[in-house]
């Protein structure tokens, strides 16, 4: 565990994770509870652009591999 990260790096990383969860966690959970809920149609509408992005990234990888 820890890979090539020195002990001080592991401590700092752990601290950063803890701080992120403590500072931003509560507001993120609150936003998740209070933000408008999307209907099934809303989520389906999201599939078109996101699907387009996925296909485009696959195309980019194929082009890069040449």
């Amino acid at each position, binding site marked *: *565990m*820890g*890979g*090539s*990260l020195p002990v001080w*790096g*592991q401590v700092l*990383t752990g601290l*950063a*994770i803890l701080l*992120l*969860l403590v500072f*931003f*966690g509560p*507001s*993120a*959970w609150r*936003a*998740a*509870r*209070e*933000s*408008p*809920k*999307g*209907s099934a149609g*809303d*989520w389906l*509408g*999201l599939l*078109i*652009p*996101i699907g*387009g*992005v*996925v296909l*485009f*990234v696959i195309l*980019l*990888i194929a*082009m*890069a*591999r*040449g």
Partner: protein
Amino acid sequence: MNQERILQGRAQAGVLQTNKVLRNTYMLLSLTLLFSAVTAGIAMALQVGMAGYWIAFIGGFVTLLALPRFANSSTGIALVFLFTGLLGFALGPILNLYLTMFTNGGQIVMMALGGTGVIFLGLSGYALTTKKDFSFLQGFLMVGILLAVVASFATLFFHVPVFSLAISGVFVLLMSGMILFQTSQIIHGGETNYIMATVNLYVALYNLFLSLLRILAAFAGNR
């Protein structure tokens, strides 16, 4: 009759306000991206190491935390340039790493850059033309991004390349959602502050670029 005119006038004022926020956001975003490119170029030319990366990154993060307090003043614009300049500077060592680590590093960097531009234009165009309301994504994006950031920190502990690659893929999807959400917020009047809109879009583009860079390097990088 009078009431109808008043309502029409209010609707027109709303459209004008939305167009103004959109125009100012894209103008500021273009300028900050150019500024970032300049600071990234400087960092690359100076061969700044990873210590410089961390200093610029932490400085950028602190600036980001301070930004909402100054978002309604001219100081906010100066802070946006400081923030984007620092993050651009932090990109320098990363780009140098890719250019030296891979024989086709230059091609990978250019493809990630072009890919980021195409995805941004495509998603913004989609949100602008369909005028769909993506506000339902807010909670999902906030929790998703927080968990993805925590997971990406965790990759520093567990050196599993597949896990790191999967997180990059998740980031591409989350940042795409962020672009749709932010553009939709501007169109529907949910975001009236162009400084905060610019920062949100910039962060999305920055992460999208880095994630594409990682994915392309993993699949097509020649050592």
